[in-house]
């Protein structure tokens, strides 16, 4: 290798490839298609995955643990304990935070109601969202005009509202919503904030899957409790904890479960939902596509490999004399083997590069046609390339071995 024999082999292989362009192209076709389909497949599923990650991030992030009410009475009459149970309450959120206040980066409360909503322009039956804590931030909302709810608004059950863009256009079509009054049920509330419009289309040209989020009419949870669905226990529909540290989540979730159970007279009338874990699980199901793509790449590499062996064996016949000459002037079988291997591996190498280029083009076309941004992982490049290299190596072995075992005398005499 260090006296230039390796260099010489590569150079000769290159010349051989260039001089037999048609043959070389045919030989590398299998590699090209295999690499292209593996890379293409991987990057399409990577792109899809990336896109759905974006969706979750836009929905307010994956680092959340939701607690919801859940029916505890499966059948028959409820027991006395179950009857006496109070359900999910504001107190649960407070005690949850006390478990590990350094890990909890935010808490959101939600308590919904349904009411008649009236303004000068419209009169509709609407869902009202009672929000507490950092609800807006945790659900991915941002204030466009006006302000967020203050601590005081929530503590005092202040009659204030924040509207989504759709609600604004329905109830205040002239665009002067801020500061105006909206009647929710019998309660007049003042519009103090307007949210940014939320838009997410999974693919270009699809419907905005966030459109219902623009319908939001948010008021403090405490106001919902006082005027609509109220009770003295401060029940809520959902509590959300934001835990940024990934490794703290499992521990927190377990501790929270214990605290809630103790708080709920040992009744499991709540359900914990670790959003990140759920999404990761859902995404891992998408791996089946990766396997399919990998398999199709495998098959074309095997097909290409067999074609390659065939062509190589056929050309070996043409080159027997050349092998004989080299052996006569002192090339050992090992050297002949190396020369054939170099040629096959160079072919595989060049073929893979072409395959990678085609694979990128291929995934560009597909992702553009389904309207999602292209995302190619470096990992996909490496795995497609390695796969081809392994196949190229394995299928090169037989012809190279055959050539190296020729008898120099017979090879020289071969016509």
């Amino acid at each position, binding site marked *: 290798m260090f006296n230039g024999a390796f260099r010489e082999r590569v150079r000769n292989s290159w010349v*051989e490839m260039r*001089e037999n362009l048609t043959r070389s192209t045919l030989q590398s076709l299998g590699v090209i298609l295999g690499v292209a389909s593996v890379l293409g497949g991987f990057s399409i599923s990577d792109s899809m995955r990336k896109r759905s990650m974006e969706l979750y991030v836009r929905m307010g992030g994956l680092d959340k643990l939701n607690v919801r009410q859940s029916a505890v009475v499966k059948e028959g009459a409820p027991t006395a304990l179950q009857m006496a149970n109070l359900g999910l309450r504001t107190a649960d959120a407070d005690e949850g935070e006390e478990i590990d206040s350094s890990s909890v980066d935010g808490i959101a409360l939600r308590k919904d109601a349904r009411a008649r909503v009236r303004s000068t322009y419209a009169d509709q039956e609407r869902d009202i969202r009672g929000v507490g804590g950092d609800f807006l931030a945790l659900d991915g909302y941002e204030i466009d005009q006006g302000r967020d709810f203050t601590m005081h608004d929530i503590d005092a059950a202040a009659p204030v509202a924040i509207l989504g863009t759709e609600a604004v256009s329905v109830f205040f079509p002239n665009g002067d919503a801020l500061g105006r009054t909206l009647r929710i049920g019998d309660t007049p509330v003042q519009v103090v904030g307007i949210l940014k419009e939320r838009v997410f289309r999974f693919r270009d040209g699809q419907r905005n899957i966030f459109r219902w989020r623009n319908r939001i009419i948010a008021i403090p949870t405490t106001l919902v409790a006082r005027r609509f669905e109220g009770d003295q226990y401060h029940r809520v529909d959902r509590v959300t904890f934001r835990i940024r540290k990934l490794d703290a989540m499992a521990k927190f979730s377990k501790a929270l479960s214990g605290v809630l159970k103790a708080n709920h007279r040992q009744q499991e009338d709540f359900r914990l939902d670790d959003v990140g874990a759920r999404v990761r699980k859902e995404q891992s199901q998408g791996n089946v596509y990766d396997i399919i793509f990998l398999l199709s790449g495998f098959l074309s590499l095997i097909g290409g490999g067999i074609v390659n062996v065939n062509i190589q064996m056929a050309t070996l016949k043409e080159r027997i004399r050349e092998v004989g*000459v080299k052996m006569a002037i*002192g090339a050992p079988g090992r050297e002949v083997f190396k020369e054939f291997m170099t040629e096959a591996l160079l072919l595989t190498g060049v073929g893979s590069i072409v395959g990678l280029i085609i694979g990128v083009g291929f995934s560009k076309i597909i992702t553009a046609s389904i309207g999602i941004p292209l995302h190619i992982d470096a990992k996909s490049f490496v795995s497609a390339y390695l796969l081809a290299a392994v196949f190229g190596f394995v299928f090169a072995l037989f012809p190279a071995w055959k050539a190296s075992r020729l008898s120099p005398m017979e090879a*020289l005499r071969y016509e």
Partner: protein
Amino acid sequence: MQPIIETHGLTKVFGSNGAAVHALRGIEMTVARGEFVALIGPSGSGKSTLMAILGCLDKPTAGTYALDGERVEGLSGRELAQIRNDKIGFVFQQYNLLPKASVLRNVELPMLYAGVSRKERRARALELLERVGIPEKAKVLPAALSGGQRQRVAIARSLANGPALLLADEPTGALDQKTGHEVLELFVDLHRQGNSIIIVTHDLSIAAMAQRQVEIMDGLIKLPEAA
């Protein structure tokens, strides 16, 4: 002084049992260092087989063969390759140059297998091309050369590793008389410089240029008639 070639009872049998062909039937041959020997004989006499065995391209079925003092009949393929590389220079009738490599690279090839450094390979190859009289053709492909020039390249290649023995198989067989003669002159020169040469031919006028003629007949050396 030790002979360059010494064989005893060299036999070669092709095929087996019923269809066996006895190509060589006990060759006793000695070539002294620095000798120029012509191996002659009609086709089918076994001279090509003998040449292959002397050139370490093939192994004898039985008998002993010492090349430059080293017994080679029992060596492995790899060891034989090394001996061919190190001690033998081949010149073929059909030149057998690699068509896709330049003249220079062709001459460098045996040195490449011997592990000679790039710089030295280049220097020695140029020197050899000078010696065979075509230094200006270093960069061209063999296809651009005449037959005589190609054979000169082949001779330069055969000399690359300073072999103990030059083996030429009908070196002028594909050349016209004039160029053939020039090539033979080159061999005579090489002999004068001290090289041991065996030339295989069926042309008696060529054989006459050698110091000694060894005639093969039916797998045996035909004893020279008393001169």
